[in-house]
């Protein structure tokens, strides 16, 4: 780097940062839309529906209703993450072996850019009483079933939606791996299963971690799928927040659930965190 005599330009820019007037909008944004909203959520969590200062919301949260809700939300998010991982890992693995892998990856990602509502809506038709899923069940002799508004449909649709988000980070970390390591492992007599278990999987674990992070947190907080597919049952923390804010209008309780959701999110991110920069550069996360 040329850091010799010509520090003038750098200084000119650096001096700017001591009076960064061009940064005012950005810092204003941080203050107003990053810090203030979180502070407001915490603040509101201490008020009840008629505006009295209280700890009741927290007490309520630890009552059986909300504890059961939290547990079931975690259970669903866990199931969704596990199934997504089971589908996504082999896909990512085999994708790295295709000839035009970037193109194939792009094709995998494109569905993730299609609006979530539309994909969910498609399943209202597919899983409907006269939809293709039921026609298939009828054809193989099982007969019509109520598929919509069941746990199965909720988990299936969620897994469908999250698959690309899980594939992307796993693909990236598998793709970054040095192929010589695999050759070495095979040369030293490891079977392909042992190579996978002892070499490939541990080396690509960071991709799995970011994938889990990218699926688990939204799975806790999604409310669209539960509303449209799971038939108005409140089964995730996200649905509960939406319900409290927009239906019951109890912002205090909604904020309290949101506070806990933020806490869970931080814990999950710490558990799945990693030093290097995560692979969320392209593809939509949320």
């Amino acid at each position, binding site marked *: *780097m*040329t850091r010799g005599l*010509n520090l003038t*330009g*750098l200084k*000119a*820019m*650096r001096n*700017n*940062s001591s009076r960064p007037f061009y940064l005012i*909008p*950005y810092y204003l*944004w*941080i203050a*107003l*839309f990053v810090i203030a*909203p*979180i502070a*407001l*959520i915490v603040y509101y969590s201490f008020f009840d529906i008629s505006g009295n200062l209280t700890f009741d919301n927290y007490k309520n949260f630890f009552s059986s209703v909300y504890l059961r809700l939290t547990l079931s939300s975690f259970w669903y998010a866990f199931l969704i993450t596990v199934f997504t991982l089971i*589908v996504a890992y*082999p*896909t990512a693995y*085999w*994708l*790295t072996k*295709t000839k035009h892998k970037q193109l194939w990856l792009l094709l995998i990602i*494109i569905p993730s*850019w*299609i*609006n979530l*509502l*539309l*994909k969910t*809506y*498609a399943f*209202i*038709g*597919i899983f*409907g009483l*006269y939809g*293709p899923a039921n026609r298939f069940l009828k054809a193989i002799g099982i007969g019509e079933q109520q598929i919509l508004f069941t746990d199965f449909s909720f988990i299936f649709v969620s897994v*469908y939606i999250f698959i690309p988000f899980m594939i992307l980070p796993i693909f990236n970390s598998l793709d970054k791996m040095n192929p010589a390591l695999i050759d070495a492992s095979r040369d030293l007599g490891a079977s392909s299963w042992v190579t996978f278990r002892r070499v490939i999987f541990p080396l690509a674990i960071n991709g799995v971690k970011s994938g889990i992070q990218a699926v688990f*947190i939204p799975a806790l*907080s999604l*409310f*669209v799928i539960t509303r*449209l597919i799971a038939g108005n049952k409140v089964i995730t923390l*996200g649905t509960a*927040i939406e319900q409290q*804010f*927009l239906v019951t209008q109890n912002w205090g309780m*909604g*904020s309290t659930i*949101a506070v806990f*959701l933020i806490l869970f*999110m931080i814990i999950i991110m710490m558990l799945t965190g990693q030093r290097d920069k995560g692979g969320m*550069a*392209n593809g939509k*996360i949320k």
Partner: protein
Amino acid sequence: MGKLSKKGKAYLAVVFIILYAPIFYLIFYSFNSGGTMSSFEGFTLEHYGAVFSDTRLIIILMNTVIVALLSSLIATAIGVLGAIGIVFLRNRKMRSAVLSLNNILIVSPDVIIGASFLILFTMIGVKLGFASVLISHIAFSIPIVVIMVLPKLQEMSDSLIDAAADLGASKRDILTRVIIPFIKPGIFAGFFLALTYSLDDFAVTFFVTGNGFSTLSVEIYSMARAGITLTINALSALIFIVTLGLVIGYYSFSQRASRNTPGTGGL
């Protein structure tokens, strides 16, 4: 590396079919003259006609596009300046603190962003409607732009700025004639990403939109809750095409952003 086995190919094929089947299922039935998504009776374009003859829907569509364009333009301006500011922050700790704050909205679940913005707007007295939706979209797009622009800025060598300053460029010249042209691909990529996020957003808008104002996703949600209408299918076919165009646009910019690595950049 080993080649793709037969088993692998079959597996990938199944995954691709599952990923695309629902989308093409929707589009297929948008041409159905029967009113359902279960039996195809005959070919028709009437549902597309319904989309374009429904003035309410057209207004909503225009709202959506205006919000998306305006919010991503403003977010790009603020985000680019913010990214430049972050790069030139002297204090390392300060820089990583600002970066962490920047990323909070990217990782936050939509419900939380929506709920907290709803509280914010109610508190400071912004009427729910166009303004609140636009401001929210700007707010959640800014960090995306910053993230897209930062790598380009970090790639830029200090000596470029030094040289410009030595040659007598003012700060303003350095910004507009050295830095901005250099990071242009990043700026476009950020703009495109912001645009798609805005067009795609449902949850945040759902919280902060009042009664009078609606965007396409919110409208689709209320239509879908009422049941199956093939108008949604026609809409989704149109949205699919637009999305495809945007993805291709975004990828061509970000490809260019990563390919144009001049010799001066990097180490």
